[in-house]
């Protein structure tokens, strides 16, 4: 029998695994209940979502940025679960301790692919998981209320989508990542295509095409990484070659091998442009960056509120995560030479999206375009390749994810009450609904970058990073100026949004689709306590990020520093274990060097 401490320790060590299993369990329960007690489906989904959120909060509390292993090296990936899928994998000198511990003793020369089920979080993925779990609460809350019929399939697919999104951020194996990346567009396609608005089919079709194409490109890049790793670790004498699918190994080894010289370097210099290009286009489509943003603006106004919350809040963050996880650490040789152009596209795209948003009248399209603009700036900060910018970009991505997710929920709530918000709707939308009004004002101000809320903290750090830039490129004065201009235009957009929602002057009786102004003001169906409760964690997080960003930066810094080690903008020393491992790898790949020289 386990004691309480042991039980907690067991749970704490496997929180990430539980974060994947709990929503899946929810899917099963919801499916079972569909024929027995359909009325309980919503409650079960809410309970499940609450449990997932509690687990994600526990995961955040349990994450120790300063944790070290027995040799004193920092442990960046924590709460990991690592199980082998394939039989008899090869043991190589470059294995992580956690992995070697779970492997059967004794190596072999057979090249069996090392496919594993590995999940865990570091200081980068931690926040995206928390973001997804937090936004799932309003997403599920938006499915209830009024005379809605409970459709269990919608709940089940939404919980599956949550699993896929969390999985994308936590899996540490290429195969798992490919599965999750493919699942997300598929689930979105069904959710939007079946439960979306008037033009749902076209929107779902377009979104699926873009996201699936992006996922395919990323998968192509991942396969290129696996094959490249195998090539680069191959010794000409023909003894061993590592066909590893571990993301940690791929991301850790390839830059080291490429820096080592010899054939590995030569191989990577040939292969890396292709991998870089597919990753760049794939993640740019997922972010989405200008000019590949059409799918988001086109899809969001046809998307059911629950999906819109997750899509704009967490779905669009996959791209940012991909940039931080793969593009930045893997291509230290290539990125500085291409980054100027990418930054220009990001910041120019942000300004463009902000201007398009200014000319929009539709609330959801405006929200989507504002999100595109902020995402562009986040990626620009991330690619400024210094610690302040990268941390700022990630923090801003999380903060804006919360803001836009909540904003999508509130617009959906308003739409549900109003019937529809047409582009020419001039009704005082929030008349008599002070809770909705206060929440909307709060979130819009947060998104606009008001001090004390998340937008300011992330935005400031982001711009500091963009300004500082990379030592090789120099300060990004111009980029910062255009970025600030984009943010100013977005501020104007948000002011107009507030005005549209609050102004009472343009009301003309009989214009609206849902009755007169008197009826609208008398109905006074404000946000319910349940809806407020669902929003509360997100709102608190927005305030927390704004008032004390240091809490988040402290946990983010070691992982981001590690990501940027190759660029020389951090002061991180190579951990002892990694140093030994890298030395061993370099030694191995240096053998062909001498052989080649002798030849």
């Amino acid at each position, binding site marked *: 029998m386990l004691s309480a401490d042991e039980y907690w320790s067991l749970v704490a060590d496997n929180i990430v695994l539980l974060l994947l299993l709990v929503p899946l369990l929810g899917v099963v329960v919801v499916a079972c209940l569909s024929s027995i007690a359909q009325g309980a489906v919503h409650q079960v989904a809410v309970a499940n979502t609450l449990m997932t959120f509690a687990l994600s909060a526990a995961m955040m509390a349990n994450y120790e940025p300063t944790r070290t292993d027995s040799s004193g090296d920092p442990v960046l990936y924590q709460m990991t679960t690592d199980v082998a899928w394939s039989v008899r994998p090869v043991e190589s000198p470059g294995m992580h301790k956690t992995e070697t511990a779970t492997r059967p003793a004794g190596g072999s020369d057979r090249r069996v692919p090392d496919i594993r089920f590995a999940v865990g979080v570091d200081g980068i993925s931690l926040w995206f998981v928390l973001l997804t779990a937090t936004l799932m609460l309003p997403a599920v809350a938006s499915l209830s209320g009024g005379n809605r019929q409970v459709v269990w399939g919608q709940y089940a697919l939404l919980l599956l989508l949550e699993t896929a999104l969390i999985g994308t951020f936590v899996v540490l194996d290429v195969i798992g990542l490919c599965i999750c990346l493919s699942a997300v567009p598929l689930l979105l396609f069904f959710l939007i295509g079946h439960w979306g608005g008037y033009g749902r089919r076209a929107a779902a079709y377009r979104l699926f*095409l873009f996201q699936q194409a992006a996922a395919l490109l990323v998968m192509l890049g991942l396969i290129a990484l696996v094959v490249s790793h195998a090539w680069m670790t191959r010794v000409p004498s023909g003894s061993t070659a590592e066909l590893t699918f571990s993301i940690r190994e791929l991301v850790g080894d390839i830059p080291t091998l490429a820096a080592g010289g010899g054939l590995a370097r030569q191989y990577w210099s040939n292969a890396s442009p292709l991998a870089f290009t597919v990753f760049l286009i794939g993640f740019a489509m997922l972010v989405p960056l200008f000019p590949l943003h059409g799918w988001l*603006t086109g899809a969001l106004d046809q998307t059911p509120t629950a999906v819109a919350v997750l899509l704009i809040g967490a779905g669009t963050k996959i791209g940012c995560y991909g940039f931080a996880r793969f593009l930045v650490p893997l291509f230290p040789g290539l990125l500085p030479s291409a980054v100027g152009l990418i930054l220009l596209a990001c910041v120019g795209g942000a300004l463009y999206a902000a201007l398009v948003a200014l000319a929009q009248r539709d609330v959801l399209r405006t929200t989507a375009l504002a999100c595109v603009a902020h995402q562009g700036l986040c990626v620009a900060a991330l690619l400024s390749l210094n610690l302040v910018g990268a941390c700022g970009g990630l923090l801003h991505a999380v903060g804006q994810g919360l803001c836009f997710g909540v904003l999508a929920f509130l617009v959906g709530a308003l739409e549900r009450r109003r019937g529809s918000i047409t582009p020419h709707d001039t009704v005082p939308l929030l008349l008599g609904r002070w809770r909705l009004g206060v929440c909307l004002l709060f979130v819009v101000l947060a998104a606009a970058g008001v*001090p004390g809320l998340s937008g300011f903290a992330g935005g400031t750090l982001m*711009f500091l990073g963009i300004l500082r830039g990379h030592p090789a490129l120099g300060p990004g004065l111009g980029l910062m100026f255009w970025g600030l201009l984009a943010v100013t235009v977005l501020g104007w957009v948000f002011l107009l949004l507030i005005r549209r929602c609050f102004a*009472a002057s343009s009301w003309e009786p009989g214009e609206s689709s849902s009755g007169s102004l008197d009826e609208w003001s008398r109905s006074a169906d404000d946000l319910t306590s349940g809806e407020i409760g669902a929003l509360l964690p997100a709102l608190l997080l927005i305030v927390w990020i704004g008032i004390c960003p240091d809490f988040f930066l402290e946990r983010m810094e070691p992982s981001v520093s590690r990501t940027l080690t190759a660029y020389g903008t951090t002061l991180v020393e190579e951990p002892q274990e990694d140093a030994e491992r890298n030395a061993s790898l370099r030694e191995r790949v240096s053998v062909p060097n001498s052989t080649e020289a002798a030849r």
Partner: protein
Amino acid sequence: MADPAAPLIILIPGVHLLTVLLSLTWALLSTRKPSLWPSIAGCGVAATAAIGLLFQVSTSPDGSAGPVRLFDWASLGGVFPLAVSIELQAGRLSCLLLSVVNLVAVGVTMQAAARADSRSAWRAPVASLQLFATNMLLLVSNFLAILLFWQLAAVAGFLLLRSPPDASGNATDTADSNQSTAINRVVLTWMVADVPLAMGVFLIWLAFGSLDGAAVMGDGDRLAEVLQRNPALITVICFCLLAAAVGRCAQFPLLGWLEDSARLSHWPNALLQTATLMPGAVYLLFFAQPLFVFSLDACLLTSLLGAITALLAAWIAASQNHAPAALSYSTASHLGLIFAALGSGTSLALDAAAFHLAAHSLIKAALFVTSAILLRRAARTETSSRSTPDTRLAYTIFFAGALLLCCGLLGQNAILMSLREPQQRVEATVLPTIVDWLCTISIGVQAMAVFRTLFLLLSVRAAEAAAAEGAKDVPRGDAASPAAPENVAAALLLVGGAVAVPWAFYQFRFGNLDFLLPETETAGLNLGVVLLVVVCTQMFYARPRQLPIGLRGAVEPFGRLGRDLFHLDEIFSLAVAGPVRAIAQVCRFADQYVLGRLVGGFPGRIPQLVALAAKPMQNEAVQFYVLSLLIATTSLLAVLLWFQG
């Protein structure tokens, strides 16, 4: 040893934050209508604490208190380290301004309480939030923290100006639309001015590698080193900080928002101008003086902009028929004088500017409070029946304040003297002479504007007064609430400006006190000029029909130009807002009809192409199927063979 001033330093902003929380909690839990009294009490406590801190700081050997570290906002290592901590520190100037800000806030919130309507009540927590931000702005020394509280003050200003909806939910009021447009204009101007501040702060980090204001400004060697390395950078930083202050202090060319702000609401506007936004912005220029010393261009520009604003704003104020707007433009004009002094950069000029800022804030607040009393009375009664003790006292206070403000005793003379001081740096240019002339003329026009406002208040009609006060459908004959507390507050503000500020300067040895004692001839001349101005103003505005038609015709175009605000709104719309909107429409068109179809069209055709390729298979084209199978099998075999070596 713990700093004895630490509790006071924390108390001053802390009490405002506490007030916000208390007001909101009270409103949400019980009445759903916050009360203004916690705000008044909070301002009183903060003012007392600020005066206590002023005494403590003045007696301390280094003339400062703190720093008190509250918490680390953000810290990151790496090659470019970043450390932002919320640390409070008070010097003598910040203590003086803290006292002034909180004293003004007491008076203005008391005037707000007299209105006693639901809109004012809901504004109370927001006003406290803005005071919290302003107090923090005066106490923090980290540049990023300054940016943080600077923007927080603006956001609170936005919420303060935006009146909450009426309880009745009256949605058909066209004034709401105008209000929204006006607020948007005001906030957009502030936002435009915030961008340069953000840029300036970021550039400071780039240039100095630190955001700690005390470290950056206090280290002369470091400043000189940066100047040597990149002299243009210091100038750019100064321009950025100046642009931010210009936006917030409504200096030329960003003074169009004053009209909107003044017409939106009375006491929030008074609070913005005399206690929160404007003094905070001027303080930024004081704080950044060590940087301005190294940039002659920035100093000259500051002086020139200040002088132009001093004249233009006074001109506009003198042609306004809306009393709060006239007072607002008069404030901008006085701040223009302060800018001109700050630009000259001498120690006498800085002392004079600080003195005028403190005294002007208190006296202008008294004028705002008394004008509100008079407008409220006027809105409810006809002109003939307004002579009550309350209104007589208010008129007296207004007159005394106007006289003090205009006769040059409260700093204008000192500013002019400082402008006329020989400055070695700018000997070669005629700019100081131009600035001197513009400022000298503006002082006469300022006097005309203030006394014209007084005559306006004497003769204002009930409907105009109701509109100016922002009240709707005021029932005639209703007794207005007693004005005694407001009159007391106004009198205290007047005494504060006229007596306490000079005494504080004398007592605490703020600088060279000679400027406070102008020669008898100068003082007499000033008084004579002001009296002449009063007579002229009375002739021109109170009894215009008595003027010769030719003179009236000659003066009218100047008045019309001032009333139209020099068409600044139209110019900005044409030069900035219009092009941005046009570009936005073009971008929207491009996004929807060009990019959307181009990008969406090509991937959209891919499935069709795939379907075209797959069609032969469906049509029993066996050879196609077999070929595909063969290619796939061969590829798989090749891969397997490769892995087998």
